[in-house]
Structures are given as C-alpha cells and as structure tokens.
C-alpha cells in the first residue's frame, strides 16, 4: 500500500508541476511582457486565460503536503526541517503570487495594477525556483532524517539546476498554453508571440538538461543512475519525444494537441524522477517502506483518494472543458453595475 500512496504522491507532484506550472509560466511571461503599454495585451491575455483555473491549479500543492504528512510523516518532518529556508521562501512566494494576481484584477488604477502585477510576476519566478530546489535537494540525497537546516542542502549544483529547470519548464508550459489561449480569444498576433517564447523556453530546458547531465552524475548519483537506465530512462526518452513533438507542432502551427504533448513532457519527466528514486523516499537513507505511515491510515488514504478521484475527476474535466469552450468569463463592471471613478486608469 505504501508503494501505491508513494505513486499517488508522484502523480500529484506531476499534476502540480503541470497545473501549477502552467500558472507560474504565465506569471513568468507577465514579468517579461515589458512596460505597461507594450505589455498590455499580453497581460490581458494572461489575466483572462488564468483567472478561472488558477485556484484549481494551485490546490494540487496542498495535496502534495497532505499526502506527505499523512502518508510519510517521517519524510515530511525531515524535508521541512532540512529545507526550512527554501520552503519558507516558497510559502511567502505563494502568498505574494496569489494575492498579487487576485488583487490586480479588480484594481483599476494603473499604479496599483503595476505594483500587484510586479509582485505576482516576481513571485511566479521565485516560487517554482525554490520548490524545484527543494526537489533537487531531496533528489541529490542531501536530506536524511535529522539533517539540520543548512544552506548546502539547497544551495548545491543539483538544487540550483532543478530550480532553474523548474522555471524553464513552467515558462515552456505557460507559453504553450498561452498560444492556445491566444487562439481561443482570437488574439492572432499573440499566437506567434507565445509560439516563439515556447520554443525559446524549450531550448532553455534542453540546455539546462544537457548541463545537468554531467553535473548531477556525481552530485545526485543515485537518481542520475536511475534516470539513465530502466524505466527511468524510458520515461525520460518518452518525455523528450513528447517535447520534440510539441516543438514540431509549434513549428507547424498545429496547435490542437500541443498543450497535451507539453503536459506529457513535464509529467513524464516527473514520473522518470519517481522511477529513478525507487525504492527511496529520501535517497539513499529512507525507503518508502521505512518511511510509510501506519498501514491502516495508508489504506484509508487510498480509499479517500479513490473517492476523491470519482468526485473531483468529473469536476476537473468540467471546469477545464468549460474553460476551453470559453464558457467561463469574469463578471464585468456592467454585470455588477459598477461605475467608473475619478482616478481610474491613471
């Protein structure tokens, strides 16, 4: 049962990497959209594309935490002790991001929108970085039960590369999704804008992965070996294939399936990490079997998960479907009948 829950955890991490990642990516492009005038349309698109689903996308993170502490309490304790600072920064980043985004939308005054927007965009950069560096710290084997919080656990080659890869991957996902959103909202100029950026971000992912290959060989040797053989390697190859397919689709402007293939690229890379790290929760000190919580709890966690899949699955499909059908639109001032005030758009 512990193995099943461990896989659920990996799948939920993958879901967060894709759902949350798309979101962080949108924030990344918001940051690089340029000044208020130049970036106006880009930010308009990002706002409209993200708004209905960003909360849903980010709830995955809460699952990751709950699954960790309920399923593998010892691992949870070890990770949150050893990686205290990056996790604090990720938490603060989450607040800034969510608040910045939520507050920017109803603001009318340009100066305020700028502040909230900047907060949102910068936080979209630091949060995935630190979450990635946490993952890197774990994968490099630097976290063990009782490891005190020191900088080397998260300021090491593997962590830094994982953090940068997280940013690049989210930028890639974000751009691919924004291409589709631009088509959906009929903003044809932005289709090419984000198409270019998706390709650039994919290039960045490839470059970082190529750098990571030799660097992590010794720095994170257990996971490195897992990813270069067996199922881990298979997943990595599949991930790379889907990445290339995404690039091909982007180049050919066949945008229908590019979102799906980009999600597969990232999700398979996470699965590869899951395979590579078997049988360890914390390589090479704590195995899944040793770190697992009480058997009865794990059985119930499985049941709860199953019920949730039955309940949440259709809801999730519905919301994404409605969103891609453009059935979801924010209330406008005309709907709630709100007046303009002096000082708007100043």
């Amino acid at each position, binding site marked *: 049962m512990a193995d099943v829950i461990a896989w659920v955890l990996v799948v939920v991490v993958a879901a967060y990497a894709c759902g949350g990642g798309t979101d962080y990516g949108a924030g990344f492009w918001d940051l690089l959209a340029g000044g208020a005038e130049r970036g106006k349309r880009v930010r308009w698109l990002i706002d409209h594309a993200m708004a209905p689903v960003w909360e849903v996308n980010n709830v995955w993170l809460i699952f990751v935490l709950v699954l960790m502490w309920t399923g593998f*309490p010892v691992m949870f304790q070890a990770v949150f002790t050893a990686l205290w600072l990056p*996790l604090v920064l990720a938490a*603060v980043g989450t607040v800034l991001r969510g608040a910045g985004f939520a507050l920017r939308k109803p603001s009318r005054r340009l100066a305020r929108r700028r502040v909230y927007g900047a907060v949102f965009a910068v936080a979209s950069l630091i949060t995935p970085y630190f979450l990635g560096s946490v993952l890197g710290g774990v994968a490099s084997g630097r976290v063990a039960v009782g490891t005190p919080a020191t900088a080397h656990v998260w300021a090491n080659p593997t962590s830094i590369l994982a953090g940068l890869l997280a940013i690049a991957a989210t930028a890639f996902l974000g751009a691919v999704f924004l291409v589709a959103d631009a088509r959906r909202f009929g903003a044809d100029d932005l289709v090419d804008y984000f198409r270019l950026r998706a390709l650039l971000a994919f290039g960045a992912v490839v470059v970082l992965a190529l750098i990571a290959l030799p660097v992590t060989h010794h720095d994170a040797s257990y996971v490195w070996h897992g990813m270069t053989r067996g199922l881990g390697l298979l997943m990595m190859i599949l991930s790379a294939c889907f990445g290339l397919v995404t690039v091909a689709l982007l180049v050919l402007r066949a945008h229908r399936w590019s979102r799906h293939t980009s999600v597969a690229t990232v999700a398979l890379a996470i699965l590869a990490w899951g395979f590579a790290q078997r049988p360890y929760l914390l390589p090479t000190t704590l195995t899944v079997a040793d770190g697992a919580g009480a058997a009865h709890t794990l059985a119930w966690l499985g049941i709860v998960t199953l019920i949730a899949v039955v309940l949440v699955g259709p809801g999730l499909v519905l919301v994404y479907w409605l969103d891609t059908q453009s059935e979801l639109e924010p209330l406008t001032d005309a709907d709630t009948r709100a007046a*303009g005030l002096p000082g708007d758009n100043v």
Partner: protein
Amino acid sequence: MLSTAPSMLSTAVNLAGSTPAQLLPARELMAFTLASHILLVPFGVALPFVTLIMHYRGLRRGDPVAMQLARRWSAVMAVQFAIGIVTGTVLSFEFGLLWPGMMGRWGDVFGLGFGVEAWAFFLEAIMIAIYLYGWRRLRPWTHFWLAVPLPLAALMGAFGIIAANSWMNTPQGFSLDAHGNPTDVDVRKAVFTPIFGPEYWHFVVAMFLTAGYVVAGVYAVGWLRGRRDRYHKLGFTVPFTVAAILTPIQFFLGDSAARSVFHKQPVKFAALEIVWKTDTHVPEYVFGRLHSDGTISGGIKIPQLDSILAGFRPDTKVTGLTSVPAANRPNAAQATLVHFCFDAMATIGSVLILLALWYAWIWWRHRDLKANRWFFRCAAVAGVACLFTVECGWIATEVGRQPWIVYNHMRVSEAVTHTRAGGIWTMLGVVIALYIAVFGSFLAIVLKMRTRWRVADEAAAGAAAVLDPEADTPYGPRHEVDTAAAGAPSGGGRGAGPSEGRPGGDH
C-alpha cells in the same frame, strides 16, 4: 513503521524539560497566521450559501434586485476566496515549518482529516470557479445548480479541519509501543474523537452565523445612512434571517460543547472557568483574573453556578487546574486569557439571542422593518462582534489546550522546529508586513467595489428620476458602465449603499 522514530523520540525527550527559544516565535507566527486566516473562513464556508439563497430568490421570482445582490456578492467572493486560499496554503506549510515534531510522529494518525479536507477543498475550488465565471455564459438555472453542491463541499472541508483539531484536543485511535510511538492506528476512531461532534457543529454554525451577520451588517449601515430601498432591505433581510435563526441553535450547541469539554478535557474546562481547586459547589466567575497563587481578582462571582452549568446540580464536582502538575496545565496568564475569551464568547452569544428575538418581534408586530435606528445600529455591530467571537472561540480552544499540542501526549515544545529563534522571528516580521499589505489591499479593493456600485446605483436612480444621467453624475470619465447603469431596469432600486463590505468593511 517509523523505523527511524526512536532517535527522534530521544530528541523530543531531551527537549521536553526545557522551553526552546524558538517556541515563542513559532507560536506567535502560528497564532498570527491562523488569527488572520480565520477571519476569512466564515465567508469561505458560508458566503456561497447566503449568495445561493439570494440567487435562488432572484431566479425563482425573476427579481432583478436579488440577482444584482447575488452577482455582486460573488464578485466579492472571487477576491475573498483567493486570499483565503493563499493564507490557507501558508498554514499547510507551517505545519512542517514550525511543528515538524508533531507531523513526524502523529501525521499518519490524524492526517487523514486533512486528506478529506484537501479533496473537499479541491471540489470547492472547482465549483467556485464555475460559479464565479459562469454568470455570463451558462444558462441561468444550469449555473445555479452547478453551484448547489458548493456549501456541501464547504461543510466537508470544515469536517476535515475540525477532525484534525478535535483529534489534537482528544487524541485517540492508536496505542503506544515501547518507545512511545503510536501503533495500531484506527482511523475511524482518530477521526471521530469524543470532542469532534460538539466542536464541528459549534464551528460550522458559527461560520454561517458570522457570515450572515457581517453581510447583513453592511446593509444595516447603508440603511442607517438613509439608503432605504429594496436593494438594502433585501441585502439585509436574507443574511440576517439566516443568522437570526441560527443564533439560538448556536447557543445550545455552544453550551453542549462546553459541557463536552468539561467531560473530555477537564483541565481545559478548569481554565475556561478559572477553577483552581477540584471542588463541588464551584462558583462561576464572569470575567475576572486568575493569579498564579490561585486567587481571583475582579469579575462577578455567582455562587454555585459553575457546578450547576457543568452538571445541572450544585454538588457537581468540577476538576480544578491544580489537579495536574503545573507543567501540565495552562499557566495563570493563559487561563485568564482563555477565561476572558470564553466569557466574551458566551456574553456576545447571549446578546445576539436578544437581537434575534428583537428581529422576530419586529417582524411579528410590524411585518416589516420599521425605521428603528437602534435595531439597525445593533445589527450593524453584530457582524464585527461575531468575528471577534470567532477569534475568542479559537483562542479558548487553542490556548486552553496548552502546554499540549496533542493533549496529554505531546507538548508544544516537543513539536517545535529546531530552526533558530532569530530565523522564525524574521519570518514573523516578514509575514506580518505581508499580511498587513495583503489584507489592507483586500479591504481597500472591496471598499472600492462598494463605492463603484453605490455611485452606479445612485446614477441609475438619478437617471430614472431626471431621465438625464449627465445631470446627476458629476463624476469622472464616462464609461459604458454609466450608460449601462442608466439603462438598467429600474428594479435596481435607488442608491445602493455600502454594499458588499467584508470583515469590518463599514463599521
């Protein structure tokens, strides 16, 4: 399981004797973030319900005023829900950042409630997204019915959180092995702990009650400022009625919750009622201060009453704080705080019953809300009083449990992180600054929304009267909004007031 736990246990035992320096900042940080988050919880749990009632009324009777209110409330909900999500996520992080000792040892015993909560919360996020963004395109009744499960998901979420909290108060569903580690976990027992039922219903009803009074309070203020149209009447009546019906129910639920504490957590009950020595014929102190030598100063002493309240008879034996060693109970200052909060909660609850009765009487006598200024003044304050009461109830629960994080099984000092105190103090400073900015902006935005709506409604009213919107709105750049407002059905009523404020929005 927990093969590595013995080593952790020894660390915990070493820590048990002393108070680590990081304990205070960790507790302050947890208290501050929870105290902030809990102000949003009533709206997260109950605002969808109140909005749906209004929405139903609007659809069923084709009432444009009710629809307008429901739409505007959901616009507020959109911002409030987002802030609730981020402040809630912080709490999840803090379990690991501040209390790794508790999660490491007990996570698999009591964590399942959080699992339920997480999925319920996911459903809530999905449905709220559909509801908030479905106004424009979905068919009206489809839109409504898609949101109907929303309050149920909110109740499920509360179920998970309260299951976890009540487990911390009355832990069970496990046995301890030779090393003192939990084994033989029985999940059902760990979820449905003795205090769970009373705590859950008391909490849930408190959330609905608070949301009702706060929303109604916003329109009460508008009414007091002379905006006595149908918009304000409806905006006041619907949430206020919900809250007024729940008030007497809450009174009994609160009373039974207190009696459950008396039976299941006698030392906490002693703190709630500042009972020093175990005795019969124990007097009740209304407020008052407990000193570390057991004397009580201030407050009103009512002979015998505490025993009577606890067991319906003056000879009921009430356990005192001194029944356990000083290290195992809240200290005098904590007990005083807990007692103050408990009494404040009980007092406000009782006063709210009078308010609910007053409301019933007004309806029974006049069948309408007459311009009784004092009633509306009280109603306007009720929401803020409720938010204060929510804080009090939470402080009474949490501080009353001290020094335990898992009642009688783990001290807060054993659970706390090993991170240096300086780091946590810094984080506390950052978080306080951050939350002030976030909550301040949130409040500012909600108030701004209110102003926009009021201006638009006044413009519409002016247009209806003068048939010339230009004459009545000497405001800035003309928007399509103004024309839309002016052309809207006159059912929108005359000037809208300080509508849709959030916590303390207008008072």
